Every structure is written in C-alpha cells, then in structure tokens.
C-alpha cells in the first residue's frame, strides 16, 4: 500500500524536495551541535530548556488530538468521520515522531538515551513519558495502517484492530497528561506548579491539533479529488471552538489565582509574559500576538455563517493553531524559568542553528505527514472512482 506514495504529480515531488532541503540544513546544524555541544543554542544555566522542549510539548498535544476524531466515530458512531479518521491518526504518527526527535536533539548525550530503559526509574515522569509516547506511536501505526489497508482492499476493518482503537482513547489522554506532569510536579517553578496544567494542556491540544487537521484537510481537498465532507469539517470546527474556550477559561483561572492571592512568586512569571518584569519583556509581544488571535479564532468559529465559509474557517483554525503554539511552543517553557531560583531574570532567545534544527524536525514531520496522507488520499480517490 505504501507504494502509492511513490506515484504523484510533479508538485508533490517538488514539495518533498523542498522539505528535504530544509531537513538537510537542520541535520547539518545538528551535527555541528553534536560536535560543539548544546552551548551553540540559546539555552544556558538559567533557561535550561528552550525551543526544543517547547516544540516537544506542543506536538504531544497535536498527537493526542487525534482522539477528538476517534471518540465521535467509534464511541458515538458519527459516520461522517469515517473517511477522515485515518488522516487524524497519520497526523498523530507524524507528531509523535517529531516529539521523539525533539527529545533526541535536546539531550546532551543522545547515544545514552536507552539508559532510560536500561535503568528504569518509576519515580521519574520522563520514564513514563518515553513509554507512553512509544506506545502511542505503535498504536496509531497499527490502527491507521490496518484500517486504511482494509479500505484499499474494499474489506471491512479487521475486528482485532478494535481493541487498539479503544485503547488509543485513554492512551491519547495519558500522553498529554504525563507531559503536563513533567512540569506540574516541580517545586519552585511557579508557572508550572499548578493542578490545571494537565487539563489546560488537554484543552489547548484538542483545539490546536484539530485546527491543524482542518487546515491539512482543506489543503487536501484543494490539491486532490478527496472531499473530507462539509459536515465533518464543521463538526471538527465546533470541537476546536469549545476546546479553545475551555483553554482560555483555564488561562483565566491561572491569572485570577496568581493575582488575587497577590503571591509574588505566582505573579512574576505571568507578569514577565504579559507585561514584562523589571524591564525584561522579550515574550510580551508574542503574548499580545497570541491573545487577539485566540479570541478572533474562537469568535469566528462560534458564528455559524462565518464557520461555514472555508476561507474564514481556514483563517480561524490558523489563528487558533498559532495562538496555542505561542502559548505552549514559546511562552510556557521559558516563562517557567523566569525568574530563576535567585529571582534574577535571564532571558532567552533561540540561535540560528537551534532554529534550523527545529525547522528540520518540523520538516521531517511534514514529510512523514505528506507521504502518509498521499497514501490515504490515493486510497480514498480509488474508493470514490469505483
């Protein structure tokens, strides 16, 4: 079945070559990083995690969001998702792969990474994170591949896949919960030390992941003969809208708790992010970009007539995707380290090689997604032709 990815129009191959170019630059930078050390990034002793771990966190959410298609289809028999679910699962595969690569480039001694399994440490959340991410990747490969294979052969989906589908639902929730626990259990990092971290992670994931899926499906409906179906897109849009409202509500909770209690430690990181602290405010512009996009996105998705227009739908989804990316992929990780344990503010900005490596991993994700979706599109087109 995978051979369907080998046949395509010139623009398909040009897109792949373009992605490989981006990947090539990043791989070169990664070799440089391996040779010199992680000091070539913007990270330092005070901001010891940066853009890599932030992307990892964001993409775990994108991966988990496939469950927003799986639940309505398999638990509520919402048949309109029948044709698009595999696109969600393949998006999860690409996202989990990116997550793993972001960990690989972030650790100082990647060749020792199997120490996590050689010396299993049940008290470390990172140990569980490795297990759940690997498991989620395998589950999605099993489910996505076998269901699509059955479709291609015009057979009903094999019965033995069903348990894996049901397993994927709590598993998706687990990957993002465990990722939130990486942060939420650390003493002395006030921005992260919050019980709503996992709920907020899930809410923003269920907004941003499906938003990316809608964008991908809209592109697919333009470049191929596959039609995801108007109703399917509208229902995903509603999911995005509600998830994003819950996410914004939880952000509001954080702000209330910090500022009404008036506890300096809880207020400082939020002040740093939104208004700047003691003259430092590199993230402020990012936050005030994210905020309007978040509210505009929600508003556009709330209004049915706006949502039904594909151009506006695309803009709203892009807005929410961007707002969530700034929240999790930029602000969350850096904000947690500010101020540092000595109440000093040391700021962070990513360096060129760091950004190139980050883009390369996004490029690898896009490459995997393109190839997998190409296979899925071809199967769907053949189905429609017969």
């Amino acid at each position: 079945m995978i051979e369907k990815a080998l046949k395509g129009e010139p623009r398909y191959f040009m897109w792949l070559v373009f992605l490989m170019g981006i990947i090539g630059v990043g791989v070169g930078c990664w070799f440089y990083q391996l040779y010199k050390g992680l000091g070539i990034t913007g990270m330092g002793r005070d901001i010891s995690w940066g853009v890599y771990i932030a992307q990892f966190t964001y993409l775990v959410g994108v991966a988990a969001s496939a469950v927003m298609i799986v639940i309505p289809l398999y638990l509520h028999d919402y048949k309109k998702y029948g044709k698009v679910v595999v696109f969600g699962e393949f998006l999860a595969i690409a996202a989990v792969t990116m997550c793993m690569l972001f960990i690989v480039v972030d650790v100082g001694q990647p060749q020792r990474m199997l120490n996590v399994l050689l010396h299993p440490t049940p008290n470390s959340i990172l140990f569980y994170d490795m297990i759940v991410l690997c498991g989620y990747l395998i589950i999605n490969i099993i489910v996505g591949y076998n269901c699509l294979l059955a479709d291609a052969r015009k057979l009903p989906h094999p019965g033995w896949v069903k348990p894996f589908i049901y397993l994927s639902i709590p598993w998706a929730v687990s990957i993002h919960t465990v990722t939130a626990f990486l942060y939420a259990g650390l003493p002395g990092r006030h921005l992260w030390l919050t019980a709503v971290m996992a709920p907020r992670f899930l809410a923003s994931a269920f907004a941003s992941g499906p938003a990316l899926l809608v964008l991908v499906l809209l592109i697919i409906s333009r470049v191929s003969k596959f039609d995801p179906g108007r109703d399917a897109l509208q229902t995903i849009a509603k999911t995005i809208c509600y998830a994003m409202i819950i996410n914004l509500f939880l952000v509001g909770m954080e702000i209330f708790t910090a500022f009404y209690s008036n506890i300096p430690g809880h207020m400082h990181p939020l002040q740093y992010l939104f208004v700047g602290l003691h003259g430092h405010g590199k993230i402020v512009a990012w936050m005030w970009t994210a905020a309007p996009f978040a509210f505009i996105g929600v508003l556009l998705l709330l209004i049915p007539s706006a949502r039904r227009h594909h151009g506006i739908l695309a803009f709203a989804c892009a807005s929410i995707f961007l707002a969530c990316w700034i929240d999790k992929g930029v602000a969350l990780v850096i904000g947690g380290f500010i101020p540092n344990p000595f109440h000093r503010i040391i700021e962070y900005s990513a360096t060129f090689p760091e950004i190139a490596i980050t883009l390369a991993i996004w490029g690898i994700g896009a490459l995997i997604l393109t190839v997998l979706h190409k296979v899925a599109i071809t199967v769907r087109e053949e189905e429609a032709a017969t």
Partner: protein
Amino acid sequence: MSMDRRQFIKIAGMSALFGLGGKGAFEFLRPGALEASEHGHGVEYVPEEPAEVAKRWGMTIDVQKCGEPGVVEKCIKACHSTHNIPDFGDSKNQVKWLWQDDYEHTFAGNENSYMDDRVKELPFLCLCNHCDEPPCVRVCPTKATFRRPDGVVAMDYHRCIGCRFCMAGCPYGSRSFNWFDPRNALNQKEYNLDFPTRMKGVVEKCNFCVERLAQDKLPACVEAAPEALAFGDLADPDSSVRQILRKRSSMRRKLELGTKPSVFYLV
C-alpha cells in the same frame, strides 16, 4: 566514629566479599589482565581503612566569618581546583559548584527591607544543599543522580543522558550542564589528576567531596576555611555541626518546598 562494631563488621565483610568476587571474576574472564594493567601503570591496590560513615552529612556556613576578607575566595578556589571545574568565561554556560551571592538572592522570597545593611552585603556561599528529599533525584530518568545512604546527593557522569530535568527540578539553581566540552575550559596550571574531568552534555554539581570523605578528609572548602565552615553528621547529636546548631540560630534555603536541605547558614 558514628558507627558501632556490628555495622563496621558488616561493611568490612561485604567489602571483602565484593573485593574478592571482583578480582576473581576479572581473573576468570581475562587472565592476567588485571596484573598487567596494575603493573603497566605502577598502581597497586592497597586496602584502606574504611572512612567515617555518617547517616546524614551536613554543613554549617558562618556568614559573619565569610564576610572577613579572603574567606569566601579561598573556599571557592579550593573547590574549583579540587574538582577541575571548567571556566567558560560567561554567565550563560557557567559551571558552578561553590559560589557566592548576597542575602536577597540566596534567600529570594524572604527579603527583608529593614534588615541590617551589613548582613545585606555579606557574602552567602551557595552550593548543592544535599537535600533529604531531593527533587533532582526524584525526576532523574536514569538514576544518574541519586541520594547515598550518608545523605550525599551524588552524580554518575557516565550514566547521565543530559536531559536537564534535574536542573528544572532543583529549586536552588545548584546544577550545571556542560554546554561545551569542559576539558577545553580547564585551568591547566591547577589541574587535579586525582579527580575525573567531565565531558560535554552531562550535568554536574557539588558532591560534598565524596572522594575526600572516603579518605577521611573534610570537604575541600571546609578544610580551606575551618573558621567559617563546619562539616559533620547531622544524625549524630555530638557531631561538630550539631553542637554548632545547638548554640547558633540558623537558616536554610526554601524550607517551604519540603526538600530538607543539609546546608545551614549561621547568621
């Protein structure tokens, strides 16, 4: 000695057993290899008297004494030259085992605007607190950092994967990552051949001089400034540190986090 006879015999017996087993295994697997390497480097194994073993090592730092000229500097110098601490020359990549800061930052969150100006300007020595409940140990995914039975929070530089979870977990900023190759940033003149250098991509921190404790020596910083620093077994009511803590009022950093630090500041 805080060890009773029974404990001593146990430890001595176990060491002998492992020692014999280790050598025997080596002989079996690679006959002659051990002898060859010993003779090759002119090193011969000399069994040592076991050093003093504590239940929980701890340190007191007399901040007033640290304020006297040269005290803090000689502590830091002793530590750095003992442990081959690299100097990258910038604050971003800095590796810190023992360093100084002021009251306001060391005890961030407990600022007191009406404090005596003299105390405000005193140097506070900062190091790993060797917590009883260390968050860094809790989060480490490979047990590369671990709490020894004597209370020292130690590191295995060969197992560390460099994920820096411990740096996010430590609320004291006591952990440092080797952002570049530390061997390129060593002070060649004061290079200590008896302590290993580290490689890039691993985390390191103060080890309470475990290598010196094993030889019944005090930590290098305590040896350098015995007038300001004291070191001993917190579990032993008669130890030097306990006697000092009985007489002087002390503070520890961020007690509210429940980490139970083993480093006490005398004010």
